């Protein structure tokens, strides 16, 4: 059997992985503050058997992941505890392992213990750790991220940080962190807009186009499988002893 069929197989496998990324992005098209994954996790392995071989092969393998950091659309909700990050930055939130990670999710709420947290239950990290809200008060969030309660007392400031110079990457639990693993410093240039929410940054047109492209690529690879089979069959028929 020719190696061709294995090259096609490696490509089919990558198309399947990419299609899963696309489906996950589409499923999160309405998740507040979601950052899409780029579907092209491809890279190639060049294989040349022997110096004088005329049969080099290039296989497709799993590549590195990148996150789409474009900002999503804004929607005005008018709710006091909804904030959208204004500028190229992130809110600091606490992941389940206690480490500060980056998030664009701004649907904040107060937990049973009085801690300010986001819609997926991650506590916000302020300038002095978690932000504790005293009971029975109205809360407002200023454009610089200061959290005030009524009567006017500042109870903390949201942890607003700029995009890390090293870029961002996804962690195994799906959270986003700086590519170098450090927690970025607070950046006064990043603000928030209260009463607004940033939607998911999944671009449906782009995703649909990508999906169609993957689909066509998949078809092309299945075609190669068929060609490989035909080639193999015809070489086998050459060997057949004539009756």
């Amino acid at each position: 059997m020719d190696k061709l069929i294995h090259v096609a197989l490696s490509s089919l496998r990558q198309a399947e992985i990419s299609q899963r990324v696309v489906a996950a992005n589409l499923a999160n098209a309405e998740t507040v503050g979601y950052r899409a994954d780029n579907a092209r996790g491809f890279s190639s392995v060049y294989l040349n058997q022997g110096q004088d071989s005329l049969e080099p092969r290039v296989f497709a393998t799993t590549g590195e992941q990148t996150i789409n950091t474009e900002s999503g659309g804004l929607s005005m909700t008018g709710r006091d505890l909804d904030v959208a990050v204004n500028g190229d930055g992130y809110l600091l939130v606490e992941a389940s392992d206690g480490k500060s990670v980056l998030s664009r999710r701004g649907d904040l709420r107060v937990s049973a213990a009085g801690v300010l947290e986001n819609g997926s239950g991650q506590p916000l990290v302020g300038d002095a750790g978690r932000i504790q809200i005293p009971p029975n008060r109205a809360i407002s969030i200023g454009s610089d991220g200061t959290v005030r309660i009524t009567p006017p007392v500042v109870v903390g400031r949201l942890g607003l940080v700029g995009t890390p110079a090293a870029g961002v990457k996804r962690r195994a639990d799906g959270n986003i962190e700086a590519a170098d693993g450090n927690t970025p410093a607070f950046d006064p240039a990043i603000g928030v807009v209260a009463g607004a929410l940033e939607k998911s940054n999944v671009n449906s047109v782009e995703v649909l186009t990508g999906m169609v492209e993957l689909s066509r690529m998949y078809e092309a690879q299945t075609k190669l499988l068929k060609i490989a089979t035909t080639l193999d069959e015809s070489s086998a028929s050459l060997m057949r002893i004539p009756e």
Partner: protein
Amino acid sequence: MYEALHVAQTGLTAQNHRMAVISNNLANINTVGFKRDRANFDTLLYQTLKQPGAQTAQGAESPTGLFIGTGVSISSSEKLFNQGNVINTDNALDMAIDGPGFFQVTMPDGSTAYTRNGSFTRNQNGEVVTSNGYVVNPAIQIPADAANITIGRDGTISATVGGDSQVQQLGQIQVATFPNSAGLQPMGESFYRETVASGAPLQANPGDAGAGKLLQGSLESSNVNVVEELVNMIETQRAYELNSKAISNIDAMMRNLTQST
């Protein structure tokens, strides 16, 4: 490939739930004191296909790795307690709370429930009750021959009794506020129940700091905004379409694989 199908299916399920929330909001557009819900989404677990830091060659490591999302789930539905419009009814026992706070109602089983629906009446004993007949807490008795019932902004109910020209104070309505009212559990009939997440109720007289004031002869209408709900509905429908498109596309790929080779 099968995984991709299941990922897209989580999207369909989540949008389906969201549509149910939106329909419930629209159905309750004329329910007095109704507070609209919002569906919150959360990403599901990520699957590690390539660990960051894995060696790709001698001295070289994979910088970011490869993690693939497995879809979306509806994480919570949240009540949004924005103030609804106040409608004038001129009915003496209709009350609206302008600001935070809930009326306290004693349920038939003796527990206390909370509501923003202030369309109250009197029962055969003269007690102030909700439209379902549950007694408002603290219980206030209004004599049958009471006239000119007045409710102050601080909740005091006064009236003239038995043709007496002297105004008599009959009691004071109290409101309860919660550290986190979004954590209340809706139990139907416009009532809410206290939960661990909402925190313990704090009783206050209407008009106190942090509690709203009472408006007599008014009702608070539902805070559902039709335009917003319609926009959300369109958005949900499009997201649903996208996910079903993903399913049909993946299906086409599978068909291609099984039938054309």
